[in-house]
């Protein structure tokens, strides 16, 4: 069997999720021995033509050009995996979705007419079929390696859908809500980060997006009990995974 090819693509984002691959310092060269890195502009000028066996897609769709480009990436990819909150939920730049993007442009740019931008920032799955989604702002590099390893071994990646609370207990963290009354989104947030925020004594702020079937009303009551105002609760949901948490709130 020939060596599988890997491509990495970027849309509107901070580069942090694809950087997670370069941050696998102990494993990067081993990965490069197992796959042919065929398109990864952050790391390599050597670009091979598609089609590609595995495509990792970072970033959200915010321009008309990118809405077309993602179609070409999909057509060129056997397995397409979105990496990170921008690609899976529109990212922090989806805060424009509830705002007036023209007004946003005027705030930042003296000549907004020079810009080409969409009124929305949308996840990749809103445009094309996606095979797997890695959540997080940023993704967890161990999860990324597990996923690439699983695909190379020909099995489905094991991606968690449970909440941060499970991992927090496994890590023997003291619950920041129970012990200290700190607001925490752990009960409704997808696991995968290793429950780092509670380990550092702060509540989870939801950067991995909603877990499957979260009990949003119960969570909102918990947040109110810790002293958060309705406005605080709205803002904490509307940050890194704004479209994902808003879907949850609407349901």
């Amino acid at each position, binding site marked *: 069997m020939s060596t599988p090819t890997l491509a990495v693509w*970027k*849309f*509107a*984002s*901070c*580069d*942090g*999720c*694809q*950087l*997670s691959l*370069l*941050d696998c*310092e*102990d494993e*990067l*060269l081993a990965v*490069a021995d197992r796959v042919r*890195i065929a398109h*990864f*502009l*952050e*790391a*390599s*000028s*050597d*670009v091979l033509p598609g089609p590609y066996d595995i495509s990792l897609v970072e970033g959200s769709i*915010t*321009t008309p050009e*990118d809405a077309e480009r993602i179609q070409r990436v999909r057509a060129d990819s056997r397995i397409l995996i979105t990496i990170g909150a921008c690609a899976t939920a529109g*990212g*922090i*730049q989806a*805060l*424009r979705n509830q*705002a007036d*993007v023209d007004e*946003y*442009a005027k*705030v*930042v*740019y*003296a*000549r907004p007419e*020079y*810009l080409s*931008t969409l009124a929305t920032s949308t996840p990749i799955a809103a445009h094309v079929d996606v095979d797997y989604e890695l959540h997080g*702002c*940023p993704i967890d590099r161990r999860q990324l390696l597990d996923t690439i390893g699983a695909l190379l071994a020909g099995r489905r990646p094991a991606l968690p859908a449970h909440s941060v609370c499970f991992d927090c207990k496994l890590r023997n963290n003291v619950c920041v809500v129970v012990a200290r009354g700190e607001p925490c989104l752990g009960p409704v947030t997808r696991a995968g*980060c290793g429950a*780092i*925020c509670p380990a*550092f*004594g*702060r509540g989870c*702020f939801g*950067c991995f997006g909603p877990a499957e079937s979260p009990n949003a009303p119960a969570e909102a009551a918990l947040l109110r009990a810790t002293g958060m105002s309705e406005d605080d609760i709205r*803002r904490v949901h509307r*940050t*890194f995974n704004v479209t994902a948490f808003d879907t949850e709130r609407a349901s």
Partner: protein
Amino acid sequence: MTHRYERVIDVRALARVEGEGAMHVRVRDGAVDDVRLEIYEPPRFFEAFLRGRQHTEPPDITARICGICPVAYQMSACAAIEDACRVTVSPGVAALRRLIYCGEWIESHTLHIYLLHAPDFLGYGSALALAKDRRDLVERGLALKQAGNDLIELIGGRAIHPINVRVGGFYRVPAPRELAPLRERLRAALDQALDTVRWVAGFDFPEFHHDHEMLALCTPGTYPIETGFVTTTGGLSFDVAQFEQHIIEEQVPHSTALHAHLAGRGRYLTGPAARYTLNRHWLTPLAREAAAAAGLGEECRNPYRSIVVRAVETVYAVEEAIRLIDAYEPPPSPAVPVPARAGTGRGATEAPRGTLFHRYDLDPDGRITAARIVPPTSQNQAAIEDDLARFVAGRLDLDDERLTTQCEQAIRNYDPCISCATHFLDLHVERS
């Protein structure tokens, strides 16, 4: 004009930079007519959506501007908000901030040196290709980078978008015994960093010099990282509070990143070469020796040699991290309270790529009413364009392909962080 001959080169692959951009060079009658660095990274509107957020939120939010230098965004945000709220952090917290920032310098500089920049000098398309011939070199770079990431992770909880930074300090501070294993790690990293300086010093550097005014923070007594006065090689020196009086930003049609210039003086360059030129006396003796042995003089005005400065600064950051760990005493409290108040605050720190300025206007409840962020790449854009114009003018005899490749390499000298300023670079060379 007796004839017109027009050629357009369109290469959609300036790799190994962060963010999306394009370069357009127009050559008319054998002379460079126009050079535009077109940053078309989609606008992400951070300054717009920060409005209405609480004053405690910018460290987590602005970290998301860049995955490579999130600590810089967190530190400039904290400095600006603490300025607005008239709060000074404890010396222990300040030292810990400098320590996590050292981690980012090590990580970011090593990423740029080994994975983005060095392959140009050695004729490889990537570090992965280089590893096929010289695995030991790439392994050394990855180990050094990992030391920086481990430092950020230990203090910040996560290497990309750390979670432990807050306005006023940290959520949790490490115990000295937690830092001890890292100290051993950094001892090994120091040797790797010194080897890196010797390695890059041996590269072949084209003769090319610029005459831009250079700008960096200065902190007498120490090399600037997380604090300082804004200083230029032209003799300007002003407090961060006066930043907006001296630095004027304007929008140009071809870029989503704003151009900045010094009021009444024009283009300028910020970044490692500027820091070195203005602050080399404050490097550690070992870093100074390494710089001298690598052929760096009193100033660095050849952009190609910026890779040597990054390597020297990596030596400094490793040594400084060791010093800070040795001197570390946990602060009495991880954070000082930062009560909300109405006001305007400004903060600037030295991101790996240069001076990064933030300003926030707060209402009495601590809500942000306006935010302004001036990243290093947008400050450097005019200077980069000027360099490229002269660079191209001296190489018009090259064929399009070689000229394109060399322009790509030249842009990488500045380590442009285009995600910050607003990954690919389309290169258009239009000759007529």
